[in-house]
């Protein structure tokens, strides 16, 4: 399988509690090429957004208000083989080291987001290729 996958074939989970940002970023994700974008504004909303589907990739905002973070969800997704990219207003260096995911800092630009997602997916594919070769 080639490293290039068609983003439109992919399902992306986007978790963001800020409605304005969520609206704009959803547009950007569509601009990048994602057709199936599942937006959730809170952890409670993730299940509803996914409707039982497992995403191929997830873009998760870390701080979800009320002291809640998306680390648990992210680890669970990584465990299920989902490529996870975190977005945060904190500096990336102050985050836990066991996330097994790419972290990008807010504010997000379209180019930055695309680059990050593609890189994450590419790395994920490579890992899968080498894993299959064994």
């Amino acid at each position, binding site marked *: 399988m080639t490293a290039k996958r068609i983003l439109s074939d992919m399902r992306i989970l986007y978790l963001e509690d800020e409605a*304005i*940002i969520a609206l*704009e970023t959803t547009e950007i994700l569509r601009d990048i090429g994602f057709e199936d974008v599942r937006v959730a504004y*809170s952890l409670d909303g993730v299940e509803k957004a996914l409707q039982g589907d497992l995403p191929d990739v997830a873009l998760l905002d870390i701080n979800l208000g009320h002291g809640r973070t998306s680390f648990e969800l992210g680890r669970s997704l990584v465990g299920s083989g989902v490529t996870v990219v975190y977005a945060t207003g904190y500096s990336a260096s102050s*985050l836990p080291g066991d996330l097994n995911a790419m972290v990008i800092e807010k504010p997000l630009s379209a180019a930055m987001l695309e680059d990050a997602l593609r890189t994450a997916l590419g790395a994920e594919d490579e890992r899968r290729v080498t894993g299959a070769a064994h």
Partner: protein
Amino acid sequence: MSSTDKPVPAAADLAPPVIVGVGASAGGLEAFQTLLATLRPNDDFALILVQHLDPEHDSLLPELLSKRTQLPVQAITDGMVVKAANIYLIPPGVALEIADGVLRLVPFDAPRGQRRPIDLFFESLAADQGMNAAAIVLSGTGSDGSQGVRAVKEAGGLVFAQLPQDAKYDGMPRAAVATGAADMVLPVGEMMSVLRDFHNRQTGLVPALESDAEFIGKVVRNVRYRTGHDFSGYKNGTLLRRITLRMSVLGLNAPADYLRELVQNRDEASRLFRDLLINVTSFFRDLDSFETLRDVAIRPLLEGKGPDDEIRIWVPGCSSGQEAYTLAILFAEEMARSDAKPQISIFGTDIDDEAIAQARRGHFANAIAGEVPQPWLDRYFTATRQGYDLKAEIRDMVRFSVQSLIKDPPFSKLDLVTCRNLLIYFDSDLQDLSMRVFQYALVPGGFLMLGSSEAAPIDGEGFSPISSEHRIYRRTAAPARPLDLPRSFRPARDSRRRKDDAETSLPMPLPVAQALLTRHAPPYMVLREDDIELVGPGAERFMRVQTGKPSLGARALILPELEPALKRLLTGLSLSGAPYRKIEVELPAHGGTGERLEIGAEVLPTGERVITFVTLADARAPRPAADGSDGEARISVDETYVSQLEDELENARHTIRTTVEELETSNEELKSSNEEMMSMNEELQSANEELSTTNDELQSKLKELAELNADLANFMESTQIATVFLDRDMRLRNFTPEATTYFRFAEQDRGRDIRDIGAKLDIGRVTEVCQGVMTRGTPAEFELTSTDGADLSVRVAPYRSEGRGQGGVVFSIFDVSKVSRYAREAATALDEARESGAEVEGLYRTSPAAMGLVDENLRFLRANPQLGAITGLKADSHLGQPFGEIAPTLAELVPILRQVLDRGEAKLGTVIHGPLAEDGSRRSWQVDVYPVRQSGHEVVGFNITDVTQLLELEADLRRIMRELQHRVKNMLSNVIALVKRAGREKGDPKQIFDTLTARILALANTHRLLTAENWSSTALQDLIDLELIRVYGRDRVELRGPAIRLNARATLAIGMVLHELSTNAAKYGALSRPEGNVSVRWSKIDDGDGEVFVLRWTERGGPEVREPERRGFGSQLVESMITGSLGGNLRMGWEPDGLTAVIEVAWDVATEVDYDSEADPLGHADPVPGR
């Protein structure tokens, strides 16, 4: 015993140790010390010291003596085994004996003052050790030890006595010397070397000498020459041992040296003679034998004897008489049981005149109590202080004389001879001679008893055995064999000397005189006094040895027939005073005709008397008595002469009787006073012993006093204190040199009134105080200033003295100028120290920090109350407690404290965490530890500051910074999202830009509201006021609802929704016309599923409304805000009257404060560890 392959030292080692008994009394300590000091570490003697000790006191002797020797010194306990190279000490209050080499402590049976522990021990030592024993008598009063040394000597041991001049008290040494038993009399310091020498000689030299029979022969000849006693028939072994002893006593090695000593020293022969006499005897030795003797000999002898009969008994070699007395007792017993009362004559003889003298005294030591059966002891002895005296009835039965069995003529007509353990010392020739003597002396049928170990040959001719077992024999009727006694030998030195004198004055040539004397002179003899000095040729014819005690007396030796004549001749010669008398005598010849003799006697100028015997020609015709001459038997009787003699005799008898009676009386008196003297002597001795002890004590006290005095004198000379001694009258008695600083004292001022002597101080005041002190008897102290300005302190004390009326005062002067200055300085320094101490104390008490001080063992020296807040103890309870155990929180500081203690460098800024003991809350502290030097010790101080708040503040600050960063970024993200969104809009750019600006502004307003409320919540009223009333006026907006506070999220969402709705109303709805208005109502309702916040937006009075065909960004924003961000519902009603919007959000989502300043989503970044 010694084989050639055996090394000599081994043989020496095998020899048993010499056991040396040492006796001493007063002055003994010194003598013991001197004696022990001469011991060498390798000496293998066992020394047993016997001292008269006070039974009431513990003896210090072991302690005092052990300092003088390296050999072990031990106090004797009962049953102790004597070992070589050890020193043993008798304990107080008991007597000491030795048996089989084991020491026994036994109680005294004599009362105090009559005890003779030294004699007791020496006697048992002699019995137990024999030749292996040695006895030493040292300083002491009295005579204890003198009997004991005799026993030791008799047993073959060695006896030393301290030289009386060397002894502190010479009583005991002198008594020991007087017994004649002392082998050597010498200073204490030389005894050990002599003893050592003898010991070595015994183990080394004896075999070499043993073969030298020639040497022994020479010695014996010398002894015979000097003493007249011939030991040539004695066994060589016995002789050699005794000679060796003398040689070692004299320190001589070569036999030749000893022979020279014998020749040169006249006394040595008699010393050796004494040593050769072996005086071992006892009462009833071998009782069985004596019982047998009684049955087989004594009873038959007594049978049928009347008072006129005489039984004659001879005990040759009787020594000190025990055996002779034993026989006397046996005879007395038997005679008491029968009617026979014959005369009993027992003759005890010995060549040792000292032993004979002792035998005659009839006094015996206590030891005989074990030998004589008790009934006889009671019956025949009288107990005295020193032992037992024989009663006169036994004593009178025995006669003692000095006589030699082998040299002197024997007794005759004897019924019994006992001779026990004498012949064993003789060789066979002498033994044979002895047997002939006994045969000669005994009547036929007489009895002979020999010793049980005697192997005297009984050849069957002279004796027949009665009891072989007990060596009792009976003389047969066979005629006695001829006696061939050795020639009497007398020292001839006197006669030789006289002969030399005669030679020089002889008026004729010597050969002529010799011829005349041998051929022409009548038989003659020369008398000195009554003893025969010289017997001329042929004179022996007129002489015969008599039975009984032999003597050189002329009357004893002359023929008995001639004896009366000689007696009259000599008596007449001495009575008349004439130089010459003669007498005619008819001598009846043996078995034939007699002969007439003329016996002449002449007194020579030198005092000797010459007796001549001239045979007269006609023996048969008796001639009338010549003038001045008489004859025996047929002597004409001179009546006057006879009556004169009888008168004289009567007178003499009378005188003798009177004298005897007087003597007896005075003897009794003497006896009783002697007894008194004896008892006084004992008391005096006791007192003397005690006095000598006291004297010793006083001497040591005196020595101490002298030392003290010297100390005091030195102290006086060297002391830097001015001290003055005054008597009661204020006269100067003594002063220290330093006192001349204040007084112009001179040596001659002693005795002067001190007020008359110049002084640098107010002497009037001093004496005043002194007198006060004397009166009160208590010390006083005062201060004054000397004339040269020094501050002086004077201390006056009463002078205490034992003597009454002495006393006075002693005062000392101290210059306290310097002291006062120092005292002032010290007071200042003390004040300063006290202040700084108080400051430190205050600091400790008030400092917010916990403070403390620990010593080098990390135990608390100090702690302030604040420390108690951490440890939970009171400040004082810390003191002395170990730092590490007082609170777990502090335990981790222990290594740091140690480090500071070791390196001496402060360690600051350590942070620790733990619970506060006061309330259990977790706290953090900063600890500073620093070294402190306190009175020479390194200790450690520490401060503990509570930094909990500081650290929390720091953590808060960090979190806030992070939050700020998050919000700013979020806000920028929002703005960027709006801007980007606007970039996608199509239409008039100016309108798009205005809309964007209005949105960003609305966002900013909402933020301002939230920030003003600390980002927690805002009043819904304020939000509406901001978005609607300020923009469109109060009259166009109708508000209705309760006061509600929205949380931050709801504020942002509702604020944005109100902005979009009002913007839309102003553009297309009710607010686009002047008459239009908006109603906003809100409430909290409970729809059954939970409380819900409901807000209703209603527009009225605007243009007709239609649902737009395309939803703009504003609509999307509103919807995503409500449904997305808040999870609520939004219903839009496009009614012709105007737009209606209903917003429903769960109550708690809208109102619950969602921003918790304590909650930090990134908890791992907390800067405070351990929390």
